[in-house]
């Protein structure tokens, strides 16, 4: 296949991944605001979309980590990146269907690592960078966000215990509008950069850009627009999970969770750590749930999420590796991968239409299973 054609295909696929990243992660910023009624669902996703776009222009540190650190760009081709993206998109769509807030970032890294291993061997993956810039932050960040949210929630309730209830509720709801907006901004700053990094990596492997180059403006703009559009579409299934199934969130908890998430994501983005915004926000929501006296946290839901988190990187790697193996057969192989990927996406969409979740029913949660009641926290 002509190099320019495959580069165009990879850029388009990267933008599709960015779109799925957007709707998969809308919940990170807006789930608690929608759950507490601080923002109407449609307004929430519109605000999140715009701020994701703005956030995409604020920093390129994470993009540099992706494009010039994780894999050896001299040993892989655009076809390998295409295969990795297919693996990430497949996992994103599957977890969206299940309403699981898994990490789009880890799906992307997994897909790229799996495809690179099959196409170029173990030497093509810089496991040291993967460990220090991805794995370690991924393990630490959700706990950090959870601790910040837990302490913040506890102090918020303690501080306002004797204050006027109406003022407190209204005040924290207003605060939530700002804090959730900050999470959306932070999300655009961190996650849009990952797609920028992948497109930049593609352009480097194709010889369009010099090694270690930063993303050109058109890459930043297109990645920002794709994630903003995906965010506006709204991943209502995951919004329902995070907003209603984890804990019965009140406005002080929502504010604390979003503030903790923003602090962790922005601090990490500034230092080039490509952490998972999904895991940070989920950790913060659990921390906020545990920080309120007598609040109920459904740890069974946490268990499901933990399984999805652990599986995300290897599962996407397996799909990416399989796609790379098929695509290595030449143009026909690449076309087969593309056709199978599109068919899978169409199948997922068709299944999702059987029980649609949308802005009108996102806060309507079926009764919890008896085996998974909320666990009351004594602290």
């Amino acid at each position, binding site marked *: 296949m002509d190099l320019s054609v495959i580069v165009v295909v990879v850029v388009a696929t990267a933008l599709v991944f960015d779109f799925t990243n957007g709707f998969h992660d809308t919940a990170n910023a807006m789930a608690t605001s929608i759950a507490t009624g601080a923002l109407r669902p449609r307004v929430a996703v519109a605000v999140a979309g715009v701020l994701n776009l703005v956030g995409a222009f*604020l*920093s390129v540190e994470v993009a540099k980590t992706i494009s010039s650190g994780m894999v050896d760009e001299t040993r892989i081709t655009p076809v390998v990146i295409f295969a990795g993206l297919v693996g990430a998109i497949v996992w994103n769509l599957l977890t969206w269907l299940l309403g699981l807030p898994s990490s789009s970032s880890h799906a992307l890294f997994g897909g790229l690592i799996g495809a690179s291993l099959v196409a170029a061997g173990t030497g093509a993956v810089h*496991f*040291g960078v993967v*460990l*220090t810039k991805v794995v*370690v*932050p991924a393990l*630490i960040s959700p706990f*950090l*966000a959870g*601790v*910040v*949210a837990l*302490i*913040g*929630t506890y*102090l*918020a*309730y303690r*501080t*306002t*215990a*004797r*204050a*006027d*209830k*109406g*003022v*407190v509720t209204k*005040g*924290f709801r207003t*605060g939530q509008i700002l804090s959730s907006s*900050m999470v959306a901004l932070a999300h655009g*700053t961190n996650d849009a950069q990952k797609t920028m990094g992948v497109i930049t990596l593609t352009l480097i492997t194709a010889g369009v850009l010099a090694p270690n180059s930063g993303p050109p403006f058109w890459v930043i703009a297109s990645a920002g627009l794709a994630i903003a559009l995906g965010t506006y579409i709204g991943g209502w299934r995951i919004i329902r999970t995070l907003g209603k199934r984890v804990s019965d969130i009140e406005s*002080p908890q929502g*504010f*604390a969770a979003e*503030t*903790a998430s*923003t*602090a*962790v994501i*922005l*601090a*990490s*983005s*500034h*230092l080039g*750590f490509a952490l998972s915004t999904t895991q940070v926000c989920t950790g913060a929501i659990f921390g906020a749930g545990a920080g309120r006296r007598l609040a109920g946290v459904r740890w069974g839901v946490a268990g499901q999420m933990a399984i999805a988190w652990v599986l995300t990187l290897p599962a996407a790697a397996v799909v990416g590796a399989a796609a790379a193996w098929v695509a290595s057969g030449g143009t026909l192989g690449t076309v087969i991968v593309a056709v199978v990927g599109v068919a899978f996406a169409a199948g997922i969409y068709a299944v999702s239409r059987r029980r649609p979740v949308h802005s009108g029913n996102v806060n309507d949660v079926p009764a919890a299973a008896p085996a998974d009641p909320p666990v009351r926290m004594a602290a």
Partner: protein
Amino acid sequence: MTVAWGSLGVVALVSLVAGVALIVLVSFALVGLSARARPGEVGGAGTGAAGTRVAGARGMSPAAGTAVAVVCLLAAALIVGYGLWVLIA
């Protein structure tokens, strides 16, 4: 292969201090604003978060409460603004 523990420590410290400070500042601002609410109306203004009747917020006058709220919110805005400035600059 070296884990950048120093940078991770910075992230942890900044996140903890900035995140908790913002939440506490907004909480104190709401306590201050509560002093402006008229006491004695059950279920609305003058009712504590735990359902207890309160006279203002910890005996603060409305003017003092407003001042506390303004100072706390300004401090919170400064923290957010500085964070964004550091990110963009």
